[in-house]
């Protein structure tokens, strides 16, 4: 029974394609899977948008949307209808073709990334050796669409936003990639399925997730930070920093194209959260052996949603950085930290004693963190101040 619930979608797929002749089955299963992904993630997108608006509202001592449907659950539907029926405006001087293609490229690229994520036991669309590489390759191609959008709008704010976005995404791709290298080093595979399998082991009832190791913890934190920057989430939302450059690269987008950008952004968030979950949080595995009866796909999506919640929480709290600080943070802090983390991963691999490798690993990570944080803040002469009073 538990097995059935865990594999329900796989069984469903087999049952469905079983009606077809043998030769068609492979193609049909791919088509069905793609259709499911293309249907499920926009639905999740709707949920996430609602969650975001409600969560932000609660953090700000207000309700958030609660008028459309019970508790406002139909708000995303209303939003969707609104953006679909809105006029599609293309600026007169815009490069119409590029302006049109940009959102499509973005959405296609982010959906491609989802193909390699194992969303449950035996639930991965394309199983390949280099799936991590594939994911990053797809992530890299979103930058081009951002640039296309910004450039083709012929708007100064768009252009500034696109420049910011591209610079930011390129810069943060480096720490993002490097923070995952530790996982690859330890697991010895670029395949996401293998990485999850390596984490689905339990000792004393506790899972062997990568995040429970010093290099994994540090890598996880850096991955989270870099992923916020990669998906242009607050506090790294400079490309669309609405108080500075209106809406950045999609200033001149409206209607359905804008909705596509919005969708692309959120699906990008899901995919990167899914990747982070896969790499550090054990993918679809349960944290405790005792909880393994819960279906694997529930674990995966729960973790992704939790990740999104964290993004929302951060967005509700922090102000955004400035461009040069963003770059400094990436190149002078995150990048060295990821390199140090590689060292820690190597140490973990080669030091024998269980306690010794823990202590050494944590010492290296914490020492580097404190050192670099202190030096960085001191160099910029930043810190709390005290004030004098005149009578």
């Amino acid at each position, binding site marked *: 029974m538990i097995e059935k619930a865990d594999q329900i979608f796989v069984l469903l797929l087999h049952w469905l394609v079983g009606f077809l002749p043998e030769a068609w089955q492979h193609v049909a299963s791919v088509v069905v899977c793609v259709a499911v992904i293309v249907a499920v993630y926009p639905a999740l997108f709707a949920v996430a948008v609602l969650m975001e608006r409600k969560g932000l509202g609660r953090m700000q001592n207000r309700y958030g949307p609660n008028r459309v449907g019970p508790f406002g659950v139909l708000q995303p539907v209303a939003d969707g209808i609104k953006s679909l029926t809105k006029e599609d405006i293309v600026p007169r001087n815009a*490069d119409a073709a*590029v302006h049109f293609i940009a959102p499509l490229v973005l959405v296609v690229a982010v959906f491609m990334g989802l193909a390699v994520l194992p969303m449950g036991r035996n639930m991965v669309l394309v199983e*390949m*050796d*280099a799936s991590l*590489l*594939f994911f*990053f*390759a*797809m*992530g*890299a*191609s979103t*930058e*081009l669409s951002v*640039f*296309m959008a910004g*450039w083709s709008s012929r708007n100064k704010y768009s252009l500034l936003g696109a*420049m910011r976005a*591209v610079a930011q995404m*390129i810069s943060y*791709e480096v720490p993002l990639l490097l923070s995952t290298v530790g996982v690859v080093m330890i697991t010895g*595979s*670029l395949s996401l399925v293998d990485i999850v399998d390596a984490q689905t082991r339990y000792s004393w009832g506790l899972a062997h997730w990568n995040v429970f190791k010093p290099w994994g913890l540090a890598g996880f934190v850096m991955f989270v930070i870099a992923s916020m920057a990669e998906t242009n989430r607050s506090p790294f939302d400079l490309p669309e920093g609405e108080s500075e450059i209106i809406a950045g690269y999609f200033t001149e987008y409206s209607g359905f194209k804008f909705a596509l950008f919005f969708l692309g952004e959120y699906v990008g968030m899901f995919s990167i959260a899914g990747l982070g979950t896969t790499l550090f949080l054990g993918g679809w595995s349960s944290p405790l052996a005792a909880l393994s009866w819960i279906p694997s796909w529930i674990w995966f999506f729960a973790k992704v949603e939790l990740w999104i919640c964290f993004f929302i929480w951060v967005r509700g709290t922090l102000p955004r950085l400035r461009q040069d600080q963003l770059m400094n943070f990436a190149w002078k802090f995150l990048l060295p930290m990821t390199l140090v983390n590689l060292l820690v991963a190597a140490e973990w691999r080669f030091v024998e004693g269980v306690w010794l490798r823990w202590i050494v690993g944590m010492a290296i990570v914490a020492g580097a963190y404190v050192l670099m944080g202190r030096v960085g803040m001191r160099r910029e002469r930043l810190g709390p101040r005290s004030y004098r009073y005149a009578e």
Partner: protein
Amino acid sequence: MSIAFVVLALLTLAGAMAAVTLRNLVHCALALAVAFAGLALLFLQLDAQFVGFTQILVYVGAVAILVVFAILLTRGADDGKAGTVFSRTWLAGLGIAAAVFALLGWAVLRSVRGLAQAAGTPAVTVENIGQALMSRYVLPLEIVALLLTAALVGAVIVAMYEKEGAR
């Protein structure tokens, strides 16, 4: 010669043609990105996953962006609207192109002749590449890494000097 190959080849060629014939530099750069992507797909079609993905990651993700940035930073996006796509030294260009084509053609023909003896293609997985890089080709790899590090240091120094000069 499958249909997929024909489509991909046409896509790549169309991108490449557009990259050299379009008037708008940014359009050229985007067309170049299409050509890169087509090439990557060709690699994938040949089951060379690692090369294919690296092609996308490096060329579409980084090189194309670099080109675009270079265009934006150095000149207005559509300077050179006037004038033809042919430069004045097109004759020399033609000569060079012919020479390169001949060389490539010769190489291809030679390798085809060689391939005729080989039976089947070896399965090149990422794992194989990794093994090879870390064992057989470890020295070249280290040399390349050293070279890149040196280049990186050099770039940092150049950037630092510029900053000092600006102050």
